[in-house]
């Protein structure tokens, strides 16, 4: 008798448990794509709000100004030898525009879906492109690049899938985040004045969206750079951007070692 009660209850529950994500593919269909699963919509244009670390971001800080960065002695030795003229001469003007530093630039961002499992992030400052790959993506062989290889995944809040229909008026915060892990990038500068990161560094980022009191939509990116060669501990900063209705101010500019 007891087993019959169990069987009846579990049989009743199974259809509930097996529900696919609401509105995202039917039973037996292909799994939803990362684009279809996105808990937040990052696409469109965003602009930096530069009210933190202003003098390290809006202008070039003086040589030897390392406040806040958990450097080690090897890092200081490299940074003390910073010479932007030398970088210009060798064609290395983009060293402060690599993946760990690019979201610290004063800039506009443009997110688009390259395809349904690849999110593209372009910046106007330095005219850089980052590509975030979802799913079972394998990085191609080859030398490291400025923006490295980025693997992305959604972190979806419990209840965000298979749960009640989303409230269209609910704010974006708390629905989920984008996590991006980036490796295999060329060595570069965390700050414009030559504070280095090495090719052995790893970057982990979390992209969150929040709706502010006045209706502003903000993108908050928590940026963690780990580098056993040059950092005593992970370098943790947070950059924020405001959503734009259109591409106002979008002005692609080349990298510069001196500005």
């Amino acid at each position, binding site marked *: 008798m007891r087993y019959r009660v169990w069987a009846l209850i579990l049989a009743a529950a199974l259809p509930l448990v097996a*529900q696919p994500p609401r509105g995202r593919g039917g039973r037996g269909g292909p799994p939803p794509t990362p684009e279809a699963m996105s808990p937040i919509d990052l696409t469109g244009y965003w602009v930096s709000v530069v009210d*933190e670390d202003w003098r390290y971001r809006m202008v070039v800080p003086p040589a030897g100004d390392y406040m806040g960065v958990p*450097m080690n002695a090897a890092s200081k030795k490299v940074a003390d030898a910073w010479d932007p003229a030398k970088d210009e001469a060798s064609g290395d003007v983009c060293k402060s525009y690599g993946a760990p530093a690019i979201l610290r630039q004063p800039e506009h961002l443009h997110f688009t879906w390259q395809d349904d499992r690849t999110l593209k992030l372009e910046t106007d400052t330095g005219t850089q492109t980052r590509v975030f790959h979802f799913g079972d993506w394998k990085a191609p062989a080859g030398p490291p690049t400025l923006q490295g290889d980025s693997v992305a995944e959604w972190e979806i809040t419990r209840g965000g899938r*298979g749960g009640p229909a989303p409230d269209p008026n609910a704010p974006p915060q708390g629905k989920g985040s984008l996590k991006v892990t980036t490796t295999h990038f060329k060595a570069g500068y965390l700050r414009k004045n030559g504070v280095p990161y090495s090719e052995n560094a790893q970057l982990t980022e979390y992209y969150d969206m929040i709706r502010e009191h006045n209706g502003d939509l903000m993108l908050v990116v928590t940026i963690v750079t780990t580098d056993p060669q040059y950092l005593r501990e992970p370098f943790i900063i947070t950059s924020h951007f405001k959503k734009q209705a259109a591409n106002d101010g979008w002005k692609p500019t080349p990298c510069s070692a001196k500005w």
Partner: protein
Amino acid sequence: MRRNPIILSAALVASLSFPALAEIDLSGSWQSKNHEDALERGAGPNPGDFTGIPFNDSGRAFALMNSQSQLSMPERICAFYSQWHLMVGTFGMKMWNETDSITGKTVAWVIGAWEDRAVMRIWMDGRPHPGKNAPHSQEGFTTGVWDGDVLTATTTHMLTGYLRRNGVMTSDQATMITHFIRHGDLLTLASEIVDPVYLTEPYYITRTFVNTTNLMSSGGPPCIPGDEGVPVGSVPHYLPGKNPLVDEMTNLYGIPREAAMGGAETADPAFRDKIKDKFKTPPKCQKNCGGPPAGN
């Protein structure tokens, strides 16, 4: 003990087929890394550094009149540290929840006090904010709501306090809204100040704290006044146009005064075009330069 299969099965079904509430545990000790705005949060910002602050004229004028020596006045030695100090101060956070003894529900999330910042008690039980004319305090009054797994806290009824610790002030009409976003051992606080008296638009900053197993103490009550020798009846200040420190930052870093004096446009990337030809890169850092500690 016999287990009731119906109750067990119902629990199983509930756990699988219905979404759990997304509220998450924020309790613990959270270390402040101070990797950004390190000078501002540590020793204190340079005088006359108002970069990125969306000032109106009143806010700027008030900041330029401020003398840090006001902090030596016995009646002001403990003033100015509002809840915003959580975002611009140097310390970590000790956080816990207070629960109803019968239902077990969280009544409030609490961020412990520092010596100079009062406790922040984020009421989660739906109580309203006090009326417009209710008394203000250094602690203010904070309520919270969960948006999925993000806690959003709104603080009102604060006394006037520092927006930046070099004389940039918030008024007692300011509202602070803070989003607590947790990613594993990282807790990011995205906060804004809305102040109709001194700001033209909201001022946003973001900070990330790291969970630590080192027990963090929660000091308080905040601050103990002492006599630092300021004569009774004297209020240290600068008259308009007479602040001798106004160019300290511009001289140190080659930054033009129009940038140092703040305003919403100074936080816009397009502002760089305005100052490009006026900026002069200083040859070498002169003070507060950071770098690795000896032996590292």
